[in-house]
């Protein structure tokens, strides 16, 4: 993980978004590119448009919540699945959830697009562990 990497956060909880922003900026610097969306469909649209652009060598890390109204995290994953290969290649997806339902955790880990499941909150330490 580099400071030049982009971050996308999709979560319906505004407070949580605030937290992510602060945490990421504190850990990786204020210049870090963090985009937050509390409406899942907006986030999906952004990813699709942004990552279509050629020449982006750096990766985009997506932190995705599960329990959201209208579009759930799983729905989002399904939408990403339908995107082009080169877009998917650039994504590193993490499921961030406060759910302690073991089914959710399993489903996340089993999902081909998901790199890992992270339990909220996202702390600096957890971030650093990710970097490594």
């Amino acid at each position: 993980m580099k400071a030049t990497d982009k971050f996308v956060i999709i979560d319906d909880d505004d407070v949580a978004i605030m937290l992510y922003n602060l945490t990421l900026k504190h850990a990786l610097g204020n210049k870090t590119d963090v985009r937050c969306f509390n409406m899942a469909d907006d986030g999906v649209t952004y990813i699709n448009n942004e990552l279509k652009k050629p020449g982006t060598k750096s990766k985009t890390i997506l932190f995705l919540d599960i329990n959201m109204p209208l579009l759930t995290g799983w729905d989002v994953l399904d939408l990403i699945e339908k995107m082009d290969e080169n877009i998917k290649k650039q994504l590193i997806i993490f499921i961030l959830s406060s759910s302690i339902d073991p089914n959710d955790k399993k489903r996340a880990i089993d999902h081909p697009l998901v790199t890992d499941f992270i339990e909220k909150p996202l702390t600096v330490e957890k971030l650093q562990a990710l970097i490594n």
Partner: protein
Amino acid sequence: MEQIKKNYIGLWTRYKNYVKKNVLANDEGDSKKVSYWRNAVFCNILTYLTPLSVIALIPCIFMAFTNGVPIVGFADLFTFLLVVVITLSAGIKLQTRKYIFIFILYCLSLTLLYYLPFPGPGLLFLLTVTIFSSLIYSSSAAYYSAITNTFICVCFALLIYFNIIPYSNSHNLGAWIAISSNLIFLSFVCAKCLHLLLEGLAASLSSNNLAESKYEKANRLYKFISQINQTIVHTQNEEALFQKSCDIAFKIGGFKMAWIGMFDYERKKILLINQNGIQEESVPLFSAAYENNGPQDHVLRSGSHYVCNDIENDLELEKWKVFASLNDIGSCIILPVKRKGVIIGSFNLYATEINFFDDAEIALLEEATGDISFALDVFEKYKQHKLVEKLIIENENRFRTLIEKSTDVKMLTNIKGEFIYGSPSVTKLLGYSINEFLNKSAFNFFHPDDLPDLIRNRTIILEAAGKSFSFQYRVLHKNGHWVWCEGTLTNMLHEPGIHAFVSNFRDISERKLAEQNLITFSENLNRTASDLQKIMDSSLDIICTINEKGKFVNVSKAAENILGYTPDELVGKKYIEMVLDEDVGKTNEIALEIMSGHPSTSFENRYLHKSGSVLHILWSANWDKELRVMYCIAKDITARKKAEEEKEKMGSDLIQRSKNQEQFAYIVSHNLRAPVSNILGFAELLKYENSSPALIRDSMKGMSIAASKLDEVIKDLNEILQIRSMISENRSDIHFQGLVENISLSIDNIMEKENVIIRTDFTAIDKMLSVRTYLYSIFYNLIINSIKFHRPGVPPLIEIKSRLTLNGMQLIFKDNGLGIDLKHHNENLFGLYKRFHLNIDGKGMGLFMIKTQVEKLGGKISVISEVNNGTEFTIEFENNSL
């Protein structure tokens, strides 16, 4: 003395034999011929002459020499010597010997006549020559000799006349003529006599021969017949007889060839059957067609023999002649062979000699052939006889076997009732040996209870010949037990050969036993049947049979209890009539399955009780292929079904609730966790010493927001839990209309603002027994929801209805609002914190609360909706939950 005699005799015999051997060396004649004897005489003459002539010789020679006539002496000597030579020397032909002998005697006699003064000796020898020549040669020779003598006498007479003879003075012509004439006549006499004698002898000999040959022939023929007759007596068949006849004809009969042939009338041929004397190659010639009017044909037609005694001259058949001459056949005879008076063939005999078959012979041969024919007849008769015998034996065997091997007992009793015959089956059936019941009274063997009947019937049939009756009586077995027998007794007293009562019976103990068993069995059967009936009637389930047309055949009493119909009302009715309409289809289906051989024990359907109520029936049915009926047991499971349904409902409710609980737990934990994790996150950030003041400030703000969110969640939770807890509040009758009016009043301002119209229709049912607060809450929440989620620009129109259902009631809330995308959200519709319209405020708790409350009251809530087309909520309560 004896010895000397013997020696002389021996010597004499040896001498005789020696002479014989010499003289007759090459001429062993037939003793039946005269010539033989002539030669024998010649031999004997020589034999005896030689020694005996010595008697004359010595004095003659002596006298001759002493009396001045030596020439006579020399002549005598010479003659003697020559005789000795022809007697003793071998190698001279007999005829030569004879010539020399006669010649020398003539010489001697001439010499004697000439040189001696007296004619005696000379004339003696002349006579001797005549006699000898008659003996040695034929009788005609004697005549020649006599003539020669005469000639010699005449010559000498002339010599005397002319005085040529030395002693002429002692001879005068007259004296000579007188003396010589004696010689002449004696010569002739001797010649003639001897001629006659020898002729007679010859004739006798030849007639002897003839007689002998005739005798032999006759002998042969008789032997032939005798052999044939013997053969006839000893042979058993035609073939042997024919062959033997031919053999006998050939060997004993002395025929050159003999054969027997059979006539083939159809093909006009004669086939050689047996033969003897014919060569292999020639045999086929004999199996040929016979010509019309030929010898075979003649025999065939006339039935009498055909004879030809001189084939060469008589027989017309050319080719036959050739064959006959080739094989040296002179005569032939063809005799007819008959069988049963019909000519079936011919017996053919060929003889070498001509004129072989004279009458006597023919007669004998005819007799022989007749005997052969007789034999054939005898064979035939014998064959027939044998056949008949065989038939009789067969018949007898058959009948015997029938009677004896038959398992039925056959018995004969006399008029007194005593047994006079029983077939072997008696022993098998009753155990007695034949001896044990013969001559015993039959009445002793029958059961005393049957005896009167037997006696009565017997007396009846006694009156009419041939009458009979059938019976079934018990007969005493040897072992003492009674054997049931069935049979008939017939009066055959007048039947020739029988003269008795004939009874014929068999063991029916098995049958009787079977009858007895049958009675017992049918009694048992009846008992069983009545037992079964009791079982059927006492069964609480319906036991019935249904035929292939679907009609009841038999129905047990339980039908009355279960279906309300008596068995009589059901019999003949189609069961399908009582099946609930909805179940008719599946009932017919299962019926077909059962009838195709798949019995069912678990088919359920609904029937209509006579009173009209619905019953659940559980069927166990089996199809009988042969009798074409269904055997069924019907159990009333209405109660059970109800209980099952309830249990199911309870079960599914429980499952649902537990799911809900689980879900609830996760949702709650998640919703609790979310703010907590946020707080934790912010706290983390606040830990860092190098945090900027802005960071600190933001973090603290964030933390406090999160905390208040947490608080809210906990408050909501409490509310929910309150509903969920088992607070049993009092139930009371709640009128729906009143409820709605109350709610309308409390939200009067909102209703005015949004122009809400509420329409109600509680005509179906206007009240229910329930908990007022819950029902109020439900109504309230649904109304508020409908108002909240109205279509922009469209005033909310809410319609509330009540409806009665089969087993309960429904409350229907219909609005014209935004509707819900059910495709997307069906699962989550009533879920906690689920929101479907994010643009409108709400926690997502409304529907969740409504559902919880409805369920607490024992009802169910369901929804029908279309986006932008309104929503319809249906709350259903069942009777038993009210």
